């Protein structure tokens, strides 16, 4: 039986990536909110004003806004265009799983605000290999997405000679990789710190043992510091200068832009603004549950506890009701990567984070979302290619299987 130690204020457990607890058992992420409250936001706003003034009008575009169409990037774009009247280049890295509602939101937003969109979609066959390799070796299939989203706009900055890239929320909202009050430059250090799962494109090339061409991985590699320094590139989070409040921001873009949220597999109602971009989000959350014994409901409820919108017992009730469910999108995931469900569990469970030990028998079936049938099933990975990568992983992890099964 797994009883995880949880924060005495929110409900995030000890298996969270960067959590520490103080003497009262309160976690460092909750404590960070106090730092957030103590920041002189008017001074920060002045810094932001100065930064924008230094880049405005200098080139073809005033800045780059990396964009997914989700609530954060939509809010960032909205604020920069409406408050500052900026002329941004909107850069979207299409990971391959964008949902219909999200695409509608994006088109509507861009029509209402008015901005150029530069979108890039990487080669699906390469993406499949990257998804499988990172799933096997890190228990997280989103390597291509994490790296592409953060590296590709930097290449765009160099190509279009734009010295300012403005992102949305700062890491300190949910993790302790950076703290509020600390300067968070969205740079190669941050990329290496936690974005790329500890693997760069160069490392991925080595791990794929010659299966891909180095050129295939360029969109996922971070540009050299030398090149970024040539254009004096700054890459910042708007949330470091303007206090981040997800619920308030979502309401504004809903009202002003007609932005709409969506159902997400295994997420409580009332959080329809969260993570609506990717149709494999349910699988992502499910893998986290298998590894760490908690997932999106705990995360969302904890944010609401910190913002005073939910009590801890209410949060735990949500956790009990919504966590531990198998997402229907798993069927698609297995097709995309040519895996069986047994293999999926074998791999996921090998990445368990102690002290949590997953028991597949406790998992219930989750419900499909309204657009499930629209998600594309074609482009299945050939089984022999899947096996090539799977066998390499198995060779190395014979020992780990024993550990996961027995101890």
């Amino acid at each position: 039986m797994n009883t995880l130690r949880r924060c005495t204020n929110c409900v995030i457990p000890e298996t969270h990536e960067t959590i520490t607890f103080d003497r009262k058992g309160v976690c460092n992420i909750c404590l960070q909110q106090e730092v957030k409250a103590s920041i002189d936001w008017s001074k920060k706003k002045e810094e932001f004003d100065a930064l924008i003034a230094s880049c405005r009008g200098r080139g073809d575009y005033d800045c780059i806004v990396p964009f997914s169409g989700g609530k954060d990037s939509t809010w960032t774009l909205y604020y920069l265009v409406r408050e500052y009247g900026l002329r941004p280049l909107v850069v979207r890295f299409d990971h391959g799983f964008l949902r219909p509602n999200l695409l509608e939101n994006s088109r509507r937003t861009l029509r209402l605000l008015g901005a150029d969109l530069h979108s890039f979609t990487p080669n699906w066959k390469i993406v499949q290999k990257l998804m499988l390799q990172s799933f096997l070796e890190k228990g997280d299939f989103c390597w291509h997405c994490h790296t592409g989203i953060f590296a590709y706009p930097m290449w765009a900055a160099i190509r279009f000679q734009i010295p300012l890239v403005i992102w949305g929320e700062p890491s300190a909202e949910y993790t302790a990789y950076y703290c509020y009050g600390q300067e968070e430059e969205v740079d190669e250090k941050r990329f290496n710190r936690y974005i790329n799962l500890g693997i760069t494109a160069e490392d991925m090339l080595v791990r794929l043992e010659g299966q891909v061409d180095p050129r295939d991985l360029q969109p996922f590699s971070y540009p050299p510091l030398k090149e970024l320094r040539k254009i004096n590139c700054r890459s910042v989070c708007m949330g470091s200068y303007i206090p981040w409040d997800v619920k308030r921001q979502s309401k504004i873009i809903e009202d002003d832009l007609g932005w709409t949220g969506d159902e997400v597999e295994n997420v409580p109602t009332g959080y329809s603004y969260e993570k609506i971009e990717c149709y494999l989000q349910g699988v992502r959350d499910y893998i986290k549950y298998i590894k760490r014994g908690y997932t999106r409901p705990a995360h969302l409820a904890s944010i609401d506890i910190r913002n005073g919108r939910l009590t801890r017992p209410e949060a735990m009730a949500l956790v009990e009701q919504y966590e531990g469910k198998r997402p229907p999108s798993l069927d698609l995931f297995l097709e995309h990567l040519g895996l069986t469900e047994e293999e999926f569990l074998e791999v996921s469970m090998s990445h368990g984070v102690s002290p949590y030990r997953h028991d597949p028998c406790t998992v219930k079936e989750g419900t499909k979302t309204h657009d499930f049938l629209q998600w594309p099933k074609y482009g299945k990975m050939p089984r022999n290619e899947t096996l090539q990568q799977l066998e390499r992983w198995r060779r190395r992890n014979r020992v780990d299987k024993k550990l996961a099964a027995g101890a």
Partner: protein
Amino acid sequence: MLKKRLIPKLQMKKSRFGNRMVLVTTVRFDEVMEIGDPVSQAKIYQAQAADELVFLDLDASVENREPVTDYIRRAAEELFMPLTAGGGVKTPDHFRMLLENGADKVSINTAAVENPELITRAYEAFGAQCVVVAIDYRQDADGREKVWIRGGRTGTGLDPAEWAEKAERLGAGEILLTSIDRDGTREGLDLETTRRVADAVTIPVITSGGCGLACHFSEGFLTGKADAVSAGTYFCFKDENPMQTRSQIRNAGIPIRIQT
């Protein structure tokens, strides 16, 4: 207060898929698997606030060649953290070469056993703090730990704690202890031998071989009495990184650097 240290171990070999040095993981000094580029991985560890890095050229002794310096020079251009380099180091000139190219400490293993005077000469030329004596050991048929050299290929009959003590007397500044039996197995560190070696010397001891869970690191510090724990495989195949691991070590009450 001095913190305990977390030191990723970067083992290098020539790739089977091209003429370059790559990072590898091993299991019991065998079953090599290629996992990345040395400088790329080193930068990642720096971003994740690892305390130090150890680079080991696994081929140099076997190929009987000079240590290479290319990787350490490239690493030192972008890394501002302590770097130890080892593998095939046989003479004080090799020390000088690696130190001049960016290493802060140099590790000697086979050469230290075959030519113990090297320890003293290096100590006299560069200071004890530059001299790390690496000790690899495995259990023999009688269940006793014995030191092995040449990448675990040649037995010496030496006891690791006795050899560590002698190395200190000769001028070593630090010991890097590795259990060959546990290397890459993720079954946990050999706490007993670590403790024996830590008790036998007054210089810092880095222990390695077998980390598979965050608590293994904590055990290495608390029960093994090690000053530092090094891991070559632990961070390579899991969604764990030094920043996560140090939180867990901190939660176990051990003083470790938490600064971001």
